[in-house]
């Protein structure tokens, strides 16, 4: 293959990777934040202590995080089918990507929320704030830099997961690298995909750092 033959392959694959990542990240940001907030709220000393629920959630998150993504992806095929009506393709890949990323991000949300100064929460209580106000205006808002950093790490993990999406017929750069670069010994494709992936990851990290830094009021 010549470089002029490689280029046309790259753009669609890049678009697929970015689409899968973006959609999975969007779902993860919402559901992972929700799960992370629940983990913090329901613990024994939390704002809404329900220790049994906390234990169950913690267990689910741990199991979700300990499964290798490849196995998770195959294991939840019935669930994927239920949601998307298919178990193949980019859309189908988004389901396991999201399911795999949620527990990962939920833990990062939990860590971020725990770093919020308890004195501020205490003060909000003393002002007569409701739980909802404390979660929205104190916890989530004060933790914003940490949440953004956590989401950055999560996006990068999701980009890594998309490389395995080929297993369920998803496309993307990872699939391109395996099918051309590895299986057909097209070194140029391999190099190009690796360079692109690295560039995307660096760009995401850079953007995440910039946003997080802007949110830290120093």
């Amino acid at each position: 293959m010549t470089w002029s033959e490689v280029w046309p392959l790259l753009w669609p694959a890049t678009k697929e990777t970015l689409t899968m990542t973006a959609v999975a990240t969007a779902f993860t940001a919402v559901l992972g934040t929700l799960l992370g907030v629940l983990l913090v709220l329901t613990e024994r000393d939390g704002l809404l202590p329900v220790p049994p629920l906390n234990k169950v959630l913690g267990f689910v998150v741990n199991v979700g995080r300990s499964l290798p993504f490849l196995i998770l992806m195959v294991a939840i095929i019935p669930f994927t089918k239920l949601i998307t009506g298919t178990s193949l393709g980019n859309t189908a890949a988004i389901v396991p990507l999201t399911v795999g990323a949620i527990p990962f991000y939920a833990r990062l949300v939990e860590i971020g929320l725990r770093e919020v100064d308890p004195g501020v929460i205490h003060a909000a209580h003393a002002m007569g704030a409701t739980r909802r106000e404390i979660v929205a205006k104190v916890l989530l808002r004060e933790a914003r830099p940490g949440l953004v950093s956590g989401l950055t790490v999560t996006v990068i993990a999701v980009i890594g997961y998309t490389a395995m999406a080929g297993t369920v017929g998803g496309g993307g750069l990872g699939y391109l690298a395996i099918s051309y670069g590895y299986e057909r010994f097209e070194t140029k494709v391999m190099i190009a995909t690796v360079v692109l992936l690295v560039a995307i990851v660096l760009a995401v990290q850079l953007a995440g750092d910039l946003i997080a830094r802007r949110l830290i009021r120093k």
Partner: protein
Amino acid sequence: MAAVDGVDLEVREGEIFGVLGRSGAGKSTLLRCVNLLERPDTGRVVVDGQDLLSLSGGELRRARQGIGMIHQHFGLLGSRTVAGNVAFPLEVMGVPRAERAQRVAELLELVGLSEHAKAYPAQISGGQKQRVGIARALAGRPKVLLSDEATSALDPETTASILELLRDLNRRLGLTVLLITHEMDVVKRICDSAAIMRDGRVVESGKVRDLLLRPGSELARGLFPLPEATVRPGTTVVDVTFEGDSADRPFVSTLARTYSIDVNILGGAVEEIGDARIGRLRIELPGDPQINAAQLAHLREAGLTVEVHGEAAHDGEAAVQDETAADGGTAVDGGTAVRGEDPLATEEALS
């Protein structure tokens, strides 16, 4: 284990009441009971005539909006500006945006921070942060302000300026302040009344002036630190506490002249407490206390509070001596004084 047990405090409207104690004495828990951040197992918490323990969740939140609180580590939102922090309680109270902005400006003016409205907490000093805390606490026009070691994280000069601000707000707004502290100095500078807590109990309480004049008072001992008294055989060691006028009368020389004895001064201090001047002097008289009965009576008649050291019968006599302060002669039990309009009273036992 009870963190606070059998505490019965009454804070009168418009006064600054200080609860003094070491860390772990239970004063923080006590303060948090006043707005029910900590719920006592038994007892009553009455603020501005309202029994807080009888309120529902929503009612309690509204009641809290009328009780300001400031904190040792300020508790400011790092993600909001100074103005945003002051606006927070107003948002919680549901004050409309336009009104909020106006009230925030007023409050910042009140604490002298108008220029820093747009700064973030990380950009201002500790003293300024506490001023933001105070402005925020006053947002709901509370009648009562709770202060949880508000000056403990500040240097001495900043502490002085914050205490001055509290005193000023107390006078200008008629704000009742209940503060807890481990600093004797805070009580000395601004408190009208005080209580001393140890192991979850109040060991003494009343008006600061009365406590200082009460023999055996811990507050007096803390404020006028005199070393452990060593009584040489054949001598009488006496701590004399004097106030106001008697501070200006030369009682030592009068005593020496009247009875032709040598009076040794072992130590002493004079403090300005509010508008009054109160002092304590430790003197040594020749001869046993029995021999000095007339001399001691002389001092008591002069309006001085007298404590005799090192007598075997001291404890028994203390009760008699308690009543000897001639100036009004009241052994005030401020903790149980009952008045009609007290905005804040706590009575609780936590276990």
